């Protein structure tokens, strides 16, 4: 059942359930071949009623030809009862034709009817072969909603667990119906052509097997898809493992070599810790910082690396960066820089508080402290880059000694919302 591959830029063979009548096979073939699907439908009906080949071909096409993207599971508004009614009507019509001597025998009526019903049971909505669009949608949404990187790494994912018993029961009923159809067919053909009986028997058995096993074949294909997804996951896992291996091992080697230099060792360890944390929480280290909290953290990290200090950043709330907040982050960066120069070994505390009304940043060090008035006027560090910058953007900055030790620089920017 291969799709003929042509070089012409024709659309691939897909089922178009939205415009189709039963499962969109004829509509799809029409698109593929550039023929009016109505002609194809007639051809299929003829093939179905003169020997049943049409049924088999159609059934196989439904199983193996994928739906075109965005197409629903079944044609919209299709009613199974209506379809069954149509089948019955068609059977009645054919029987009538047989009575009038136009058809090749009413012996085919029962096989066709049985096979149709069996197929409906096998492939109807809710059967293992149909999958159920709703379930799949729900699964997709669930997949999208949950699952951190860690979850994915641990392989935690509840994929659609179908109830096996129910599907098996349906398949049994459908299979029996189709089998009965085959037997009725054999009986009919046995009278027509005794020599073809053996051959026909094998063929029918094969067809029945294909129809009965079809759902499981489809399921197998689905399992393959699931496996592919798992492979993508494990690829991500491998990528992460490789990355961590590389950087962690390198850092450990560096630390051993520089064991006599505590400042470098702690800088390296801190850097590695940040990277690991970033990987575990799923944020890429090279991702652009587009919120004030992320930008502040990034600034703190770069200063940590530069000065071998520890900066503890605590943030409450967050909001997207704008011009004023970029200025706040730049001023905070200067404040951290200043603290890093004078803080010594003690960690620097940075606190960002974002409320609907304003954004505040506090940078506190435990260094010896300094007197703003004693700083020469030509030194731009604090006066220009922090106080001046904040004032230019409509905010304010204060520098005051911490209680007992150190210095605290407070930045405040009002945020009209």
């Amino acid at each position, binding site marked *: 059942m291969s799709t003929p591959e042509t070089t012409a830029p024709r659309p691939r063979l897909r089922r178009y359930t939205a415009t189709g009548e039963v499962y969109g096979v004829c509509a799809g073939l029409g698109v593929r071949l550039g023929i009016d699907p109505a002609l194809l439908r007639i051809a299929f009906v003829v093939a179905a009623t003169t020997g049943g080949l049409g049924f088999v071909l159609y059934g196989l096409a439904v199983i193996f030809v994928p739906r075109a993207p965005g197409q629903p599971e079944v044609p919209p508004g299709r009613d199974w009862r209506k379809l069954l009614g149509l089948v019955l009507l068609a059977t009645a019509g054919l029987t009538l034709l047989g009575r009038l001597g136009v058809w090749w025998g009413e012996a085919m009526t029962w096989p066709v009817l049985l096979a149709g019903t069996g197929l409906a049971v096998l492939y109807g909505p809710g059967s293992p072969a149909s999958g159920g669009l709703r379930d799949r949608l729900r699964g997709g949404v669930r997949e999208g909603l949950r*699952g*951190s990187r860690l979850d994915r790494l641990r392989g935690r994912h509840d994929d659609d667990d179908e109830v096996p018993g129910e599907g098996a029961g349906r398949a049994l009923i459908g299979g029996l119906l189709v089998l009965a159809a085959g037997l009725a067919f054999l009986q009919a053909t046995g009278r027509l052509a005794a020599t073809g009986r053996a051959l026909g028997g094998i063929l029918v058995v094969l067809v029945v097997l294909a129809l009965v096993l079809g759902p499981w074949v489809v399921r197998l294909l689905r399992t393959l898809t699931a496996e592919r997804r798992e492979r993508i996951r494990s690829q991500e896992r491998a990528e992460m493992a490789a990355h961590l291996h590389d950087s962690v091992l390198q850092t450990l080697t560096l630390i051993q070599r520089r064991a006599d230099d505590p400042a470098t060792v702690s800088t390296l360890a801190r850097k590695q810790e940040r990277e690991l944390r970033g990987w575990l929480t799923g944020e890429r280290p090279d991702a652009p910082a587009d919120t004030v909290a992320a930008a502040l953290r990034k600034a703190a990290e770069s200063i940590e690396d530069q000065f071998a200090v520890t900066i*503890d950043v*605590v943030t409450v709330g967050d909001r997207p960066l704008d011009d004023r907040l970029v200025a706040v982050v730049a001023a905070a960066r200067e404040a951290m820089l200043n603290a890093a120069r004078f803080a010594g070994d003690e960690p*620097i505390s940075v*606190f960002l508080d974002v409320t*609907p009304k304003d954004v505040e940043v506090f940078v506190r060090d435990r260094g010896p402290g300094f007197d703003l008035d004693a700083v020469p006027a030509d030194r731009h560090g604090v006066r220009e880059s922090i106080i001046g910058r904040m004032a230019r953007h409509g905010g304010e900055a204060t520098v005051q000694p*911490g209680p007992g030790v150190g210095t605290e620089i407070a930045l405040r920017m009002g945020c009209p919302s």
Partner: protein
Amino acid sequence: MPVVSAAPRVRVLLVDDHALLRAGVRAEIAGAVDVVGEAGTVAEAVALIAVERPDVVLLDVHMPDGGGLAVLRGVAAQDPPVRFLALSVSDAAEDVIALIRAGARGYVTKAISGPDLVAAIRRVADGDAVFSPRLAGFVLDAFKDGDDGPESPAAVPVADPDAGADPDDQDFDRLTPREREVLRFIARGYMYKEVALRLGISAKTVETHVSAVLRKLQLSSRHELTRWANERQLLDE
């Protein structure tokens, strides 16, 4: 470590699945407190706590088989209260808040210095709360929308539809302006005594405020807190 001292030393139990970390912490604090045992699993911890009855359990947040939360729940029924101090490398707000809500008296990161850790252990042994700047940030974040000021509609009592049943619930669902102020100072990196200095109150009063916040965190029924934690879990991606 057979150090004999006149004053009763705090008896500490270490619970962490990493032996290396236990050894490191032990080395740092053994001079100042009695480390009476170490446990590497939840089951071991629960059993050891029952036998040793330590004053303070240093509890790792993340361990196999349910982590610190499982230990807290396992010993919840004991009579002389064992106090827990969460010690973790984890920055995940929901994990930390869950542990505090389950009864831990505080949270410090593993990066804390030895003397600071000893001070925190003593504070917990005395029944006080230990808020690291990070925990203060988490709590401020969790109580944020109700605390923007009395003019904010969320803070108006009648605005809360399910507050009617128990009026006391209301108080647990909000921080007082003073508590908020204290927490903000802690988040800014202030020691308790520095906060006291700034606010012109005694260090004991600061402790009282912090303990009150801890109580609120544990008793608060506001669903915002749960929702907040859930959102964080979802946004983890």
